[in-house]
């Protein structure tokens, strides 16, 4: 009973300082002895009487390091804060950091190491769908649990993965509805990098535009990853004169795409553009002046105005420097350890099966998430708001729309496949 009330109390504490104060007062009252190791860990995970070991698996080197560093930092910050507030079931969290090196077989190998030799109680990591697909069989075979932070194409639901980013329909449908309504858009030009996430996203977008919104897709283009020449596509764009450009270009191509668009005289004054793939992280490279007035659809923006987010941004900058920026995935990665903590405490156990069981009750929730209240759906994804941000010159977005309700995650959308 005592444990339950503490959990509830902590859950309602809406900022970091509160949580730390509470931890100072309460940490003596929750002792690991209340939860003997033999009871909370029946499957031989790396749990001792006063520590529990988890893994973080992101690319720290290679081409994906640009994006994954923020996610890694956020997961570490969350773990540090959890430790400062007394840990989890009275145990301090220890982190083993592994580098996936932007190489999918390496991800699988490191996942195997974390699960087999380190016995990690949970793993936070992966960014690209390719890396997630590579580690998936490992997590399923060795029954580990992975908290995956990126918004992604959906069409997946593993027992061993908790998806803390949005799946495609959450992000895309609300965004398209908004732009159709707000900008009276009828014609759409779809452009993305050539791999699974943009292609799946555009497939969903096309069906929604044609069958639900009654609009028309006047162009669908895919550019090879890393391509930096957009001249021809921009000219084709001019021929088609779409009301809206709907973009999912990633990586280095993204920078070239927006710069060349700007140089070609296509900007917010004469063109509406909505993108799925620009967060504050990408803006750093693209430059705010090339994006000014364009829109992104995400669940989180650094500029979100709520007390949770203020505390989070402050803590993140204190930890990693005043210049650091926080994008959607970074925030989602920050949720991972907190969701795991909530699940472990609700289950009263570190056992993977028990965590999965409580995660599937639909009752795991966080009041303290920077994006606002979130709840875990039995399908392992999060209910979340979808927001539209309008980019400013300074690289921050002004949130111009927020879905009134939490949007239900639907990784297998009927009629959209």
């Amino acid at each position, binding site marked *: 009973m005592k444990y339950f009330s503490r959990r509830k109390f902590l859950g309602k504490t809406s900022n970091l300082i509160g949580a730390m104060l509470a931890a100072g007062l309460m940490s003596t009252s929750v002792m690991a002895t209340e939860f003997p190791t033999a009871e909370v860990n029946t499957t031989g995970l790396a749990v001792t009487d006063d520590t529990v070991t988890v893994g973080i698996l992101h690319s720290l080197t290679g081409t994906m390091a640009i994006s994954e560093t923020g996610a890694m930092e956020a997961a570490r910050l969350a773990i540090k804060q959890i430790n400062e507030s007394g840990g989890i079931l009275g145990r301090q969290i220890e982190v083993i950091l592994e580098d996936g090196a932007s190489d999918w077989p390496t991800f699988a190998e490191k996942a195997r190491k974390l699960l087999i030799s380190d016995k990690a109680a949970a793993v936070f990591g992966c960014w690209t769908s390719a890396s997630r697909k590579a580690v998936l069989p490992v997590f399923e075979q060795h029954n580990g649990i992975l908290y995956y932070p990126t918004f992604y194409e959906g069409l997946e639901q593993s027992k061993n993965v908790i998806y803390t980013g949005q799946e495609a329909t959450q992000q895309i449908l609300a965004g398209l509805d908004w732009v159709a309504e707000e900008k009276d858009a009828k014609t759409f030009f779809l452009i993305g990098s050539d791999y699974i996430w943009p292609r799946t996203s555009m497939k969903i977008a096309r069906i929604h535009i044609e069958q639900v919104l009654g609009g028309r897709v006047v162009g669908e283009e895919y550019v090879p990853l890393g391509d930096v020449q957009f*001249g*021809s596509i921009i000219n084709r764009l001019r021929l088609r004169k779409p009301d809206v450009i709907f973009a999912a270009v990633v990586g280095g191509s993204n920078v070239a795409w927006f710069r060349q668009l700007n140089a070609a005289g296509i900007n917010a004054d004469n063109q509406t553009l909505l993108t799925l793939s620009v967060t504050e992280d990408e803006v750093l490279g693209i430059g705010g002046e090339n994006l000014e007035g364009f829109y992104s659809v995400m669940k989180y923006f650094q500029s979100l105005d709520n007390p949770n987010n203020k505390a989070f941004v402050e803590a993140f900058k204190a930890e990693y420097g005043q210049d650091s920026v926080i994008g959607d995935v970074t925030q989602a990665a920050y949720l991972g350890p907190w969701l795991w903590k909530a699940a472990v405490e609700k289950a009263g156990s570190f056992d993977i099966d028990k965590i999965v069981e409580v995660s599937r009750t639909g009752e795991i929730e966080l009041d303290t998430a920077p994006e606002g209240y979130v709840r875990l759906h039995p399908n392992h994804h999060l209910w979340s708001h979808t927001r539209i941000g309008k980019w400013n010159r300074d690289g921050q977005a002004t949130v111009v729309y927020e879905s009134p309700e939490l949007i239900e995650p639907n990784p297998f959308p009927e009629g959209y496949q």
Partner: protein
Amino acid sequence: MGDFTFQELTSIFAMQGFVGISLFSVLLLMALGLAIIFGQMGVINMAHGEFMALGAYTTYMLSMFTRTHYPELMPYYFFFAIIASFLVAGLVGYLTEFALIRHLYKRPLDTLLATWGLSLIMQQSFRTFFGSREVSPTLPDWLMGSWMPTDTIFIPINGMFILGLTTVVTFAVYYLMYRSSWGLNVRATTQNRVMSGAVGINTKQVDRLTFALGCGIAGIAGAAFTTIASTGPTSGSLYIVDTFMVVVFGGAASLFGTIASAFTIAQAQSILEFFISSSMAKVLTLLTLIIILMIRPEGLFASKVRK
């Protein structure tokens, strides 16, 4: 496509024409440095892309420096950045030749491996010094935006700038290689190293400077590309494929071949891109290249080197 005026269509074709020319100048600038090293010395420099990235990072550093210390010089710094990129990349190239390449001239396959290793070392150094996030320098305002000869034609200024720069560099290389006495020494060394040594040419010095020149031009290319795309530790590897494609297709040791090859590839690519998707355009271009190389393995213009 019914509702277009004749003027709009002409404008779009004019702009598409410039896309082709612009791509041509980019490819040529990338390939020049490699063509010199590969053509004159027979060394396959796998780290060529990293020398470009080095130039790009130099530009980035100089832009940061100018912004903090001499903000009033921002409109002009880019010219100094190009020169600095040439010098920095050239100097690193000079040292590389001295420390690494000169020991491997008799083992061409080993230069491949050694320069590839060098490229990995350079990538990791960039990551350590500049971080893994992509950076881009603050560009002077005059490089942004586009030139509008009519109301409907937009010609990107950075594209024109690169075109101009490529022209200058190409003529400089032509002059150096074919009209200066140093160029005569380089060509003599390429044709017959022993004989050149016998008539008093310091062939080691020639090698070192040739390699440094090739790397320096890669640095210029890197500086120019900061106007198109951002720079990350692995940016170089994005360019290397296109660069090799141009050099191999053009035929080693031929400046004219490199120009012709860059032009052909750029036109094929941009025309195809306009009608089919970019991925398919790339596939078709590469397929054509393979077929041509199967028929003419020495490339478009064969070099006249004594075998």
